[in-house]
């Protein structure tokens, strides 16, 4: 299910076909819908409140940017927050649930409830574009969306080798750069 937001090459005014700069990678439909839920929300302040909740393992990206935060609704004085886990056994999920409850509490919403939604299954293609850059700056090679090319987050070299399919957490694989010799984590694309 791919929603072609603007994935087709666009024709510029002079009639030439622009393939690179004017093209945005296609979003999966469910991710497009997630972004629309936030954009169309009657309570943008609730979404903004939860922007402070970061992935405890990768404190530079928020649960919204990671694609974990799915929906926020208010029902009978209670805030219902829907999240989708990244990996089934990821221990960060319970910390995230606690952080959501406490962020809402501090923001003046003492009654909240976390709902875990498994389907559709989380995908790295839900990670927002800005977060990919934040990951790189943090020293983690982002999962990449259009292509599978891995480059060293330190020196940018593509002369890298995969050391292990698995890394320091469930979501990362271990790589090493052949040029600057730096070992680094890569967010596994799933």
């Amino acid at each position, binding site marked *: 299910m791919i929603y072609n937001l603007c994935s087709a090459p666009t024709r510029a005014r002079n009639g030439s076909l622009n393939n690179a700069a004017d093209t945005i990678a296609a979003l999966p439909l469910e991710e497009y819908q997630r972004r629309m839920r936030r954009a169309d929300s009657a309570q943008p302040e609730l979404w903004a409140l939860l922007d402070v909740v970061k992935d405890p393992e990768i404190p530079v990206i928020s649960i919204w940017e990671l694609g974990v935060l799915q929906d926020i609704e208010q029902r009978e004085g209670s805030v219902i927050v829907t999240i989708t*886990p990244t*990996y*089934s*056994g*990821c*221990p960060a999920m319970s910390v995230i649930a606690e952080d959501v409850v406490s962020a809402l509490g501090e923001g003046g919403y003492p009654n909240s409830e976390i709902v875990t939604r*498994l*389907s*559709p*299954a*989380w*995908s790295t293609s839900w990670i927002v574009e800005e977060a990919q850059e934040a990951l790189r700056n943090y020293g983690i090679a982002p999962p990449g969306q259009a292509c599978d090319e891995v480059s060293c987050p330190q020196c940018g070299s593509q002369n890298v080798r995969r*050391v*292990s*399919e*698995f*890394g*320091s*957490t*469930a979501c990362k694989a*271990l790589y090493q750069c052949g040029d600057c010799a730096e070992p680094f984590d890569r967010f*596994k694309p*799933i």
Partner: protein
Amino acid sequence: MTDNNAKEIIKQYAIRLGDDALVQGHRLSEWCRNGPFLEEDLALTNVALDFIGRARMFYSYAADIDGGDYSEDSYAYQRDCRDFTNLLIHELPGGDFAFTMARQYLMDEYSLMFMERLCDSSDETLAAVAAKSVKESRYHLRRSRDWMLRLGDGTQESHKRLQKALGDLWGYMPEVFELDDLEQGLADQGIAVDSAALKGGWEKAVRATFSEATIDVPADDWSVRGGRQGMHTEYLGHMLSDLQFVQRAYPGQEW
């Protein structure tokens, strides 16, 4: 059949799948700090975590259906050997690295096919858990298949160990593809996976890997079964005594 009965049967099925995942995950977690090298230690424990996560999802679903005081923890920590309904192959001790990877490979190949089918279950929760698991199983299989080739087509010693491990595991595979009345009934309704139907595809995939890994297909001259009925090998009790110790000594203890 009343709705309650139908739900109760789905609960039993969810517990079976949870037991498979928990026992498999626990056996893998025993490699923590014992892996042959650091990266492999991380890989084994990461895979273990995926299975424990899978067990939590199946157990939570069972607890939801139950609606009583049961939680995912009660299934993991407060049941005895005979209540566990995992397939026997999962409870065998890890053995050497060749044994652990051989079992992992045989079951990863199966799990991927199984979860792909379970994605189509008419039970929404089972299908959702499967959709999550499929992605992880693809990753697991890539690694365990790779190890089959490296060990089988590696040194004389690694080849010998892998061949022996597969021989020791082979008789536990028939049970994996058998359905009892409970599973057959659910499969007929499109809820459970008809695992018997997976056997042909599984054998084909496994034989191709064996051939590439220069491994002989073990002889089909023995088989053991009983896990789904709670009849276990001598190993499960020992494993549970380790897994359940804290909750048995300090019931209800929380971190």
